[in-house]
């Protein structure tokens, strides 16, 4: 597929996501005309670019939807739930068409026809049609004819972006009586020409009853690639005004600032030129060229005055594989830099140390920069759930409102990509099982509309994502009974409420009485938990019967590099994620021996259990007399890890362990130290379990 088509597809997917967001917002605020405008513009851009790049089916279908929304914009059709429903369906159909153009599959065309028919039924019949809303609406006066002067001056790279300006001019002609003049004065000699640049620009005089919006819409998707000025030359009011004198040509030009008084004077002074123009009046181009040249000078002057407008913020689309590769390379660089620093420190050459320090600071900057490029806001993912909740609650006859907060929180692209499925599952569960039907809610003294709150926030090197619902909550007794039935716990197990609730994450657990369409397809919360853990994250659940459930996901900002604390046990090196480290304390042999109640430390009055990693990993050489305990915290729980020696902070590039180590559950990866030694990265959450 050629690059332009590819770019269109990418842009269209983005626009569709935006369209969905706008539609859902419109449903909440039906009077928001700005939102109607956004929907219209998104449709218009998809249609226009679609036609330009040969996606005729998409263009044709979208055109129909756009027409309807044009009437919404003009107030002929009200924004109703039905309209939003249909437009959402239409949006899905466009997406299907796009998917099909990528995969080469065929799409059920009759579905598109049905949608268009349904949409058209919303349009009131123009003559003798059934008035919407019962009351006879005032008949709209015939639309005004207005003459516009349009200057369309594309930037030089318009053609290279794949836009065909001639198609836009044709679209302009379709609006009414239109004369277009090409300005070719900027075409250079061949030697100086960029063959792919565009040097021509256009002036058009258009008389139409379609309104200014329709004119603007023609250029809607080249707004960033062209300077466009639209001026009203003559409107209906000018004709109705009794006192309106017939202005002379020069006066009109002067009035619109197209020429200066001086220039007019000069022109009038040389009668021959005016005469020449009059003689050639039938050739409109000559007249407009003269006027346009003056106007052009003015535009140039204005542009010079605000020179900063020329410097535009630009962005570049880059395939994500390239970014992945960049991060890989930066990762390797971090490793090499660690080697360099170590070597420099060993050799004790001050020059080399200085260089190593410079390299370290640059590498760190490069690393942060590379990682920040991959950061995406989670808001886009959140927005897709709005639709999910809307559709599912509709199907189930429930009333649910999804609120989101912290959409601007950024996470690594890989994390966001892999987060979507678990989130969908959690939200589906909330909609399906947690939130009650309106009548049940009212009976329980709750608002008939349930809420699901989706929020994201930063917490150190982690992002916390919370999914909170005000549904019926988890019933510990039901869960306990089920867990015993399934043989997950013995009947007499002594468990706290929270522990029981967390049993829903156990493999093979499902409390749904009946398998519904939404959840309970054999994919349980254990899969969700596993997905989150694969992201080196953790999941926590707090639920109160009758009040609701909060699920918290704790995710690392990135999967590629972490700041770790390098520790040593015996001959082996390990890395603990620095973000969870609270403090390091010493553990003397006598302390160890005096601790009668197992592995427990007293940290300023707090009781903190500790794990001896050398026992955990079966490291048998003699421990040093003075060991160190690294106190780690996760989800409010503190645990100490006993190590031989704490070496210090270490920027860690995470390497996956091969398949042979897939059973090493409490190791999340490995890293290569400066001297080539491998250090294992410990998954603190797993050990805490």
């Amino acid at each position: 597929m050629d690059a332009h088509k590819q770019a269109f597809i990418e842009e269209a997917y983005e626009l569709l996501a935006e369209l969905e967001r706008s539609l859902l917002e419109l449903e909440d605020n039906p009077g928001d005309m700005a939102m109607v405008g956004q929907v219209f513009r998104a449709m218009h851009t998809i249609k226009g670019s679609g036609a330009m790049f040969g996606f005729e089916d998409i263009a044709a279908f979208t055109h129909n939807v756009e027409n309807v929304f044009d009437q919404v914009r003009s107030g002929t059709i009200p924004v109703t739930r039905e309209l939003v429903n249909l437009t959402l369906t239409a949006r899905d159909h466009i997406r299907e068409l796009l998917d099909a153009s990528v995969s080469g599959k065929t799409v059920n065309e009759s579905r598109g026809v049905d949608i268009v028919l349904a949409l058209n039924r919303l349009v009131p019949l123009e003559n003798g049609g059934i008035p919407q809303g019962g009351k006879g609406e005032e008949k709209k006066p015939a639309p005004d004819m207005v003459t516009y002067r349009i200057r369309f001056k594309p930037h030089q790279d318009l053609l290279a972006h794949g836009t065909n300006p001639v198609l836009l001019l044709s679209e302009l002609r379709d609006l009414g009586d239109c004369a277009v003049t090409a300005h070719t004065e900027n075409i250079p000699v061949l030697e100086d020409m960029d063959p792919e640049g565009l040097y021509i620009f256009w002036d058009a005089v258009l008389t139409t009853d379609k309104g200014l919006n329709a004119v603007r819409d023609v250029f809607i998707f080249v707004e960033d690639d062209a300077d466009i000025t639209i001026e009203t030359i003559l409107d209906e009011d000018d004709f109705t005004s009794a006192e309106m004198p017939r202005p002379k040509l020069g006066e009109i030009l002067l009035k619109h600032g197209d020429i200066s008084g001086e220039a007019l004077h000069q022109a009038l002074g040389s009668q021959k030129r005016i005469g020449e123009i009059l003689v050639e009046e039938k050739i409109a181009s000559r007249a407009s060229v003269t006027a346009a040249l003056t106007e052009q000078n003015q535009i140039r002057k204005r542009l010079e005055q605000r020179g900063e407008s020329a410097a535009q913020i630009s962005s570049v689309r880059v395939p994500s594989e390239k970014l992945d590769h960049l991060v890989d390379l930066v990762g390797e660089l971090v490793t090499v830099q660690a080697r360099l620093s170590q070597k420099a420190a060993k050799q004790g050459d001050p020059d080399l140390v200085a260089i190593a320090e410079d390299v370290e600071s640059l590498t760190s900057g490069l690393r942060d920069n590379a990682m920040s490029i991959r950061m995406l806001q989670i808001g886009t993912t959140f927005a897709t759930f709005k639709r999910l909740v809307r559709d599912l609650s509709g199907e189930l006859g429930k009333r649910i409102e999804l609120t989101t907060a912290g959409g601007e929180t950024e996470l690594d692209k890989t994390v966001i990509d892999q987060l979507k499925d678990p989130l969908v599952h959690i939200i589906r569960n909330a909609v399906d099982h947690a939130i009650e039907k309106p009548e049940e809610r009212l009976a329980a003294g709750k608002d008939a509309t349930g809420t699901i709150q989706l929020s994201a926030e930063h917490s150190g090197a982690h992002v916390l994502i919370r999914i909170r619902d005000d549904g019926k909550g988890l019933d510990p007794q039901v869960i306990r009974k089920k867990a015993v039935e399934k043989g997950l716990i013995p009947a007499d197990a002594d468990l706290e409420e929270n522990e029981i609730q967390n049993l829903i994450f156990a493999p093979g657990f499902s409390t749904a009485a009946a398998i519904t369409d939404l959840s309970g397809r054999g994919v349980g919360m254990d899969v969700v938990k596993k997905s989150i853990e694969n992201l080196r994250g953790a999941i926590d659940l707090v639920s109160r019967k009758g009040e609701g459930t909060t699920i918290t996901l704790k995710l690392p900002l990135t999967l590629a590099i972490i700041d770790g604390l390098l520790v040593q046990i015996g001959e082996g090196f390990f890395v603990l994620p620095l973000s969870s480290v609270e403090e390091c304390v010493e553990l003397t042999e006598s302390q160890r021996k005096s601790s009668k109640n197992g592995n427990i430390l007293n940290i300023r009055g707090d009781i903190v259990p500790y794990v001896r990693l050398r026992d955990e990993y079966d490291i048998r050489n003699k421990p040093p007399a003075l060991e160190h305990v690294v106190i780690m915290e996760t989800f409010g729980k503190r645990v100490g890890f006993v190590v031989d020696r704490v070496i210090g902070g270490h920027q860690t590039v995470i390497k996956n362990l091969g398949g042979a180590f897939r059973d090493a559950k409490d190791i999340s990866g490995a890293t290569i130290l400066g001297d080539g030694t491998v250090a294992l990265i410990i998954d603190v959450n797993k050990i805490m379990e």
Partner: protein
Amino acid sequence: MGIRMNKNKGKQPVLVLEGDVDISIAADIKTRIMDVMNETDSLTVDLGGVERLDISCVQLLCAANRSFEKKSKRLNVITGKGDSLCRTLLGSSGYDAHDGCPEKKCRACLWKKGDRNDG
């Protein structure tokens, strides 16, 4: 589709453009014209076999015309069977379909009907 430079001994060179003549081959067309510009007094561009033409090529030929005029040389365009296609594009691009561009910057417009081409 293609670009071909016909150079017959003793005759002026002819640049034949066929099929899809658009921005994707604009750079190529420029190179071909630049190659012969200094060695010939006149060049003819044959658009008779063109099936699709876009604005980039129109302005490229205008630029070439300006270069030729500057060197007091001559560029001709033959539209032949492609005439209506060319005229349609000119008309919809804000040129005069039969009179060429409104600018009149060139001494003789490349696109003026009956002037320098046999379309």
